[in-house]
């Protein structure tokens, strides 16, 4: 992120005021949405680990050859490897970074970080959440009671402020508000204006949407505004935060989308195997075959395979069978 650690309030206000926040349709393609991200932007990614990762959008940004992004996320999985290896981003701000506990430590992350090719700035999971929350609330910091006393706080000393409670005198840590330039979020359904309804695990998506300067929304399906209005208490992201709505079935594959499909373990195992023997060659091969190679997202899904997708979908729907 260029500029100061915390944006001053009047800048934040001007950024939002400058946007057209009227009730207007924003449906576009992945390629068009990719044009809304500029090189060097701070991009926040919704979902967590293997869940509701906006994979199709990240995939599209890599194909559009965007570079120099700073990326933040609660917990980073395989998408972090692809971001580093493709040059899309050189800094990831997150609480955890590896494919997933069952696959061991990411060798691609290790290569980039240990060789000084890229940065992984570590914050506690709750601090990440509170940074987005402060950003979404329009306040410049949030007081927190973790990251104190440990080395996690120590290596972030330039970015946090020890403080005393003005009422109790207690020692607290102020973590800085995080207001990303762009948020990438994937949801189960949204209308053409960007009103989004999330099922199941929400992670930090709502706070991220409120904190960002603008939201790019990918959605399993676009529903009518009438359908949204029938259950307004299920809407989680208000349309005026959103700049793009892209309908992308299986848009978080090979990760899961709650109630729609489980992670596509065959793909994840394949990626882990590829990068286990040769991290850099393996991730390059994966990028060539699965990101740069396919004609479009449907082409990518064809590579994953119909039967695999159907299995993941069957497992995903199980949550509603009880």
């Amino acid at each position, binding site marked *: 992120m260029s500029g100061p650690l915390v944006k001053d309030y009047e800048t934040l206000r001007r950024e939002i005021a400058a946007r057209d926040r009227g009730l207007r349709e924003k449906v576009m393609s992945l390629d068009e949405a990719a044009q809304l991200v500029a090189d060097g932007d701070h991009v926040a990614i919704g979902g967590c680990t293997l869940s509701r990762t906006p994979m199709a959008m990240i995939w599209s940004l890599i194909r559009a050859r965007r570079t120099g992004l700073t990326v933040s996320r609660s917990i980073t999985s395989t998408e972090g490897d692809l971001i580093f290896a493709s040059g899309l981003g050189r800094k990831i701000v997150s609480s955890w970074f590896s494919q997933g506990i069952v696959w061991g430590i990411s060798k691609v992350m290790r290569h980039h970080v240990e060789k000084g090719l890229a940065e992984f700035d570590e914050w506690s999971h709750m601090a990440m959440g509170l940074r987005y929350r402060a950003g979404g609330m329009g306040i410049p910091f949030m007081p927190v009671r*973790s990251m104190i006393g440990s080395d996690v706080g120590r290596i972030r000393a330039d970015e946090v402020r020890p403080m005393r409670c003005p009422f109790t005198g207690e020692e607290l840590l102020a973590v800085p508000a995080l207001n990303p330039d762009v948020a990438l979020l994937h949801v189960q359904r949204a209308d053409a204006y960007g009103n989004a309804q999330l099922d199941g695990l929400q992670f930090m998506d709502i706070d991220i949407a409120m904190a960002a300067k603008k939201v790019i929304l990918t959605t399993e399906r676009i529903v009518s505004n009438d359908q949204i209005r029938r259950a307004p208490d299920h809407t989680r992201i208000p349309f005026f935060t959103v700049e793009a709505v892209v309908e992308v079935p299986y848009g978080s594959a090979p990760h899961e989308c709650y109630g729609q499909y489980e992670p596509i373990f065959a793909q994840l195992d394949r990626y882990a195997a590829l990068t286990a023997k040769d991290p850099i060659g393996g991730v390059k091969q994966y990028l060539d075959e699965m990101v740069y190679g396919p004609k479009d997202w449907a082409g990518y899904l064809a590579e994953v395979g119909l039967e695999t997708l159907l299995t993941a979908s069957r497992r995903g729907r199980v949550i509603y069978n009880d």
Partner: protein
Amino acid sequence: MTEHAPTSTVYTASELIAIMAGRLLTDGQIVFAGVGIPLLAATLAQRVFAPKLTILFEGGVIGPFIKPGELPPSTNEQRCTRRANMVLPSTDVLLLLQRGYVDVGFMGGAQIDRYGNLNSSFIGPADKPAIRLPGTGGGNDISSLTDMIVAMKHEKRRFVEKVDFVTSPGWLDGDDSRRRRGLPTGGMWRVVTDLAVMGFDAQTREMEVLALHPGVTFEQVQDNTGFTLRRARELSVTTPPQAEELALIRELDPGRLYTA
């Protein structure tokens, strides 16, 4: 994989750790559990003796019941929400720790030291690490804000005099250093390994062996530890894993995803 055979039953080190760790829980507690052994141990306790135990997951889940054979790959997938009482944003489930609703944090560990500090961030210096580990996740929050149980393999390279990096604070430099440095609540309570159950001296906060698993000697524990361990005045021996416990663990993890 070390196999013990103290009774008629054979079990893996991971199964032993899960069973011994699960027994440390109390009915009615609220347990913030990591994936893997902690999840298995807490589910085991829930099934065997603690029906009113509530499990929390970092992904934003209160009171789920894991379906046997469908263990989640992390605490952030839908498998974690099966038959849950409540699903909420991850920041808010972490805030339950800060508000004081959680009795025990329960996680695995890569490296631990004499004062129960855990490292899951860096081997070597942080600015030029030999190995960049995955990082804290919620570990720092959990261990900063509640009492902790850690379950891990007992190896000399994991039990070190001083961790390279304090990711999850235990008792920091011992004595009252944790409180002095701004953490007035929580702290490392128990470390459960495949050899023993350890606690921490109430005054100095040094690690202390409380109980040995069947067939294990104190010397064996010390030999696998990179610092001098305290020995409890009355060192006890744990009851071997029972057939019911082993059967349940294997029902939960038939593919041995976490208990191989």
